């Protein structure tokens, strides 16, 4: 049977097409703008880096900063001559930690967080130990790599 009258009024027809095309166009614009705001893909962080021999000669009970990729890190020589490499970012709110030779601890000045020289959280608000790197001695210095705890 043929329907004599349209089941859609002209008004409903136009409104639904405006809504439909408007949604497609609008979401395309929003998608384009927000994808263009995303940061460009930088190179991935390295899995290991090498440090020159001068890093092996740091004095006992001192620390020396280095960059693991773009991450600030510390190489610590303990009093007994043990080299420890730690990420110098506090696990509380990402302030930079420094080594205090008097306390023989790592200190986060932002919220008074303290870590021992192996990076274990001792007191204050930090919830976790600092990330510790593996150190391998090679002929021309050190190779620092991410620890695999598997």
């Amino acid at each position, binding site marked *: 049977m043929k329907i004599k009258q349209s089941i859609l009024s*002209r008004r409903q027809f*136009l*409104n639904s097409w*405006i809504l439909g*095309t408007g949604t*497609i166009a609008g979401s395309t614009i929003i998608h*384009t703008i927000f994808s*263009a705001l995303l940061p460009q893909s930088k190179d991935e962080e390295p899995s290991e880096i090498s440090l020159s021999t001068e890093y092996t000669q740091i004095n006992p009970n001192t620390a020396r900063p280095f960059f693991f990729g773009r991450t600030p890190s510390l190489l610590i020589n303990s009093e007994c001559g043990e080299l420890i490499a730690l990420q110098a970012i506090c696990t509380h709110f990402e302030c930079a930690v420094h080594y205090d030779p008097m306390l023989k601890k790592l200190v986060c000045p932002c919220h008074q967080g303290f870590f021992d020289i192996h990076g274990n959280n001792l007191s204050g608000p930090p919830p976790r130990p600092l990330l510790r790197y593996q150190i391998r001695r090679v002929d021309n210095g050190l190779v620092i790599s991410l620890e695999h705890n598997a």
Partner: protein
Amino acid sequence: MNYSAQFDYVYQWFAERLSLNQLIYFLRKKSVPIHRHTIWYYLGNILLTAILIQIVTGIVLTFHYQPTPATAYESIKTIISEIKYGWLIRSIHKWGAYFMIAAAWIHLFSTFFFKAYRRPRELIWWSGVILFTLIMMLGFSGYLLPWSEHAFFATRVGTGIAGQVPIIGSGLKIFLRGGTEISDLTLTRFFALHVVVLPLAILLLGGLHLLLIQIHGLSVPASLENRQLSLKRIPFFPEFILQDLAISCWVTASIVALAVFFPCELGKKFDPILSTPESVLPEWYFLFMFKTLQMLPAQIGPLTGAQVGIFGFGVGFLLIFFAPLLERIFLRVSGRIFNISGIIMITFVIVMTILALINYDRVPSIEAIDLMQNTLAHQQLPGLLIFLPTLIALGIFLWLKARDLALLRIQGFFSNPSEEK
């Protein structure tokens, strides 16, 4: 209205707090006169659309652009080749600027010939002329930011022209350049002008411009003023707004289409050791000035050719700016002389631009061609080819909706605002 009860409740909640009903009542009462020059009323909206596109694309570009001589060019290269849709956003920003400036020129001269500057619209006129100047400055300051060869020399010439202005010239030049020469300081200044000072000024002054238009209503051309009361009128809301929105869709589609098919190039990086490249041309909207200054002889009487040219541009600008005051003086001499001066100015600009364009044979540099073979652009093309017809269709449906409402109004479904007291 067949909204659900919940929607209606939310709408009423906001309507009560924002006085929406009064606003809609005001907009419904506001009407647009219909006559053979009605088409020029759409230009303000075209200009506004282009400005909004510039704001949005400009914000995206500011997220990635670095305003230092060492990194400016490279950051734009990154935008083109690595940022998703970066090439498109940058091209839209360029084509949007062209549309914005073209619309500003046409809007300025169409309202000039409408004599829309007459009492009580002097403040609308003056805010408009200042807005026009700010828009041109926006184009000028943006041209330096890529720190390419053309950008550098065009800015040196442009600020040099500013230096020739009597009295304030040398101070203005040093202020714009941040020193005696174009340097990293100039780039910082132009960046600040382009992304903060000028857009903010345009938003504030543009707001005043639009507010005053709401107060005084749309101006009717002087030639139709005696028939003003008998002119047909259509309500601004919703009919004219729907037409405006339809045109905004088509303008946006045109800008995006031009950006897709004629993407913006990036010349050679500026190298201070190299001499001026052979064809340094400003953007097309400054070409008339460029050609005039090129054609003037070195010395005219006691003045240099450049000084005469700048004096001429200054006189033209002041004639436009002070039109509301000057017209009355001119009218005592002859009724037509003011119109004729406008026609002479617009003819001069067009002829000079064409003369400059005849020798316009800029070959894109090798680097620019490489960037156009952007793999990202090719991947993103199919999506854009769906977007463009959708936007054009949206415009058509909005226009049909406006026509539909007009038919209902004529058949007496709504009260005709022109009949309302």
